C-alpha cells in the first residue's frame, strides 16, 4: 500500500517539479513528515544530508525516503516515480521546444516560472531549517554561514558540507 502511495504522490510531484528537486523540497517535507509521518522532521533533514554528501543528482533523496517508508522496493519505486513522469514530459517537449523557439508563449512561460522557482527553492531551505514550527537557531546559524560562504567564495560545495558537519558536531 505504501508503495502505491509513493508511486502516486511522487509521480504527481514529478509533474510539477519545475526548478528541479530543490523547488519541491517543501512539498516533499510536508507530505513525508506532516501528512504521512514516514519520517520525523529530524530524520528528514538527516536523509537530505546523506543525499547531499553522496555523488549524483540531489533527486536521490527520494530513494532514501522511499527506503525509510517501504524498504529497498520503496527506494526504487520512489526514484522512478519522481523521474519517469518528468522524463516523459522532457521526451515530448524536447522536439516542441525547438519549433516554438520564436513563440511569445515560450518566453512568457519561461519568465513566469523563474520567480516561482526562486520562491520555492528558498522555501526548501527555510523549511529544512525550521523542522518544528519555530526556527531552530543552530540550524540557521550553519545555514547562514553557508549562504555567506557560498555567495562570497567559489569553494566546491563539498568543503562547505564538511565544514557544516564539523560545526554541527559542536553546536547540536
Amino acid at each position, binding site marked *: 500500500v505504501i508503495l502505491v502511495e509513493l508511486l502516486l504522490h511522487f509521480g504527481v510531484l514529478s509533474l510539477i517539479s519545475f526548478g528541479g528537486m530543490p523547488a519541491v523540497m517543501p512539498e516533499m517535507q510536508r507530505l513525508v513528515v506532516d501528512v504521512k509521518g514516514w519520517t520525523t522532521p529530524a530524520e528528514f533533514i538527516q536523509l537530505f544530508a546523506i543525499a547531499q554528501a553522496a555523488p549524483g543528482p540531489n533527486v536521490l533523496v527520494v530513494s532514501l525516503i522511499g527506503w525509510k517508508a517501504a524498504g529497498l522496493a520503496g527506494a526504487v519505486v520512489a526514484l522512478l516515480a519522481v523521474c519517469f513522469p518528468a522524463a516523459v514530459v522532457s521526451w515530448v517537449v524536447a522536439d516542441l521546444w525547438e519549433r516554438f523557439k520564436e513563440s511569445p508563449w515560450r518566453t*512568457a512561460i519561461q519568465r513566469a516560472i523563474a520567480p516561482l522557482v526562486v520562491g520555492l527553492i528558498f522555501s526548501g531551505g527555510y523549511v529544512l531549517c525550521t523542522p518544528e514550527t519555530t526556527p531552530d537557531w543552530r540550524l540557521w546559524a550553519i545555514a547562514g554561514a553557508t549562504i555567506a560562504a557560498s555567495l562570497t567564495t567559489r569553494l566546491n560545495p563539498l568543503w562547505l558540507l564538511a565544514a557544516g558537519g564539523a560545526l554541527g558536531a559542536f553546536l547540536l
Partner: protein
Amino acid sequence: MQVTPPRNLLELFTGFLAIGARSFGGVLPWAHRTMVEERRWITQADFAETIGLCQFLPGPNIGNASIVLGKRWFGVSGAVVAFLGLMGFPFIWVMALGVLYLEWASDPVVRAVVTGVGATGAGLFMATAIKLGRALVRKPAAVALMTACFLAVGIGRLPLLLVMPVAAAIGIIAARRGWL
C-alpha cells in the same frame, strides 16, 4: 570545434556512468566536463541550450538531460541507457550511506554531524535562490511573486498542488503584459 556523438550504447552508458560516479558536490560541472571537454559529444552552446531546457522542465535537471540527449542519439534505448548510467553509481552510494547511517544513527555525535550537513545543504539551496533572485529584483512583479510563493509554501505550508497552478497562471498573465 569538432564533435562526435557517442557511437554506440556502450559509449553512452560509460559516459553517463563517469558523470554519475564523479559528481560529488554537484552534477552539472561534471556533466559539462565529461560531455563537452573530455568526450566532445556536443558543443558548448548545445550543452548550454540543452541544460537551459532541462532547467525549465519539471523533474531533476540532469536526469532530464540524460533523457533528452539519449533520445537524440539513440531513441528510447538511448534515453533508458543514459538515465541508468547516470543514476547507477549514485544510487548505490546513497543507499550504502543510508545503511551506514542507520547503523550509527543512535550515536548523538553522528546525528549532530549529519544534521549539520543537512543545514549546510539547506543554506546552499537558499544561496542558489538568492543568486537566481538577484537577476529578478528590479521587476516588482517578480519580487511579489517570489515573496508570495515563499509565504504560501515556506511559511504557510500550503500544498504545492494548490499554489503552483495559481502562481503559474498569475505569472503567465503578468509575463504576457510585460511585467516580468
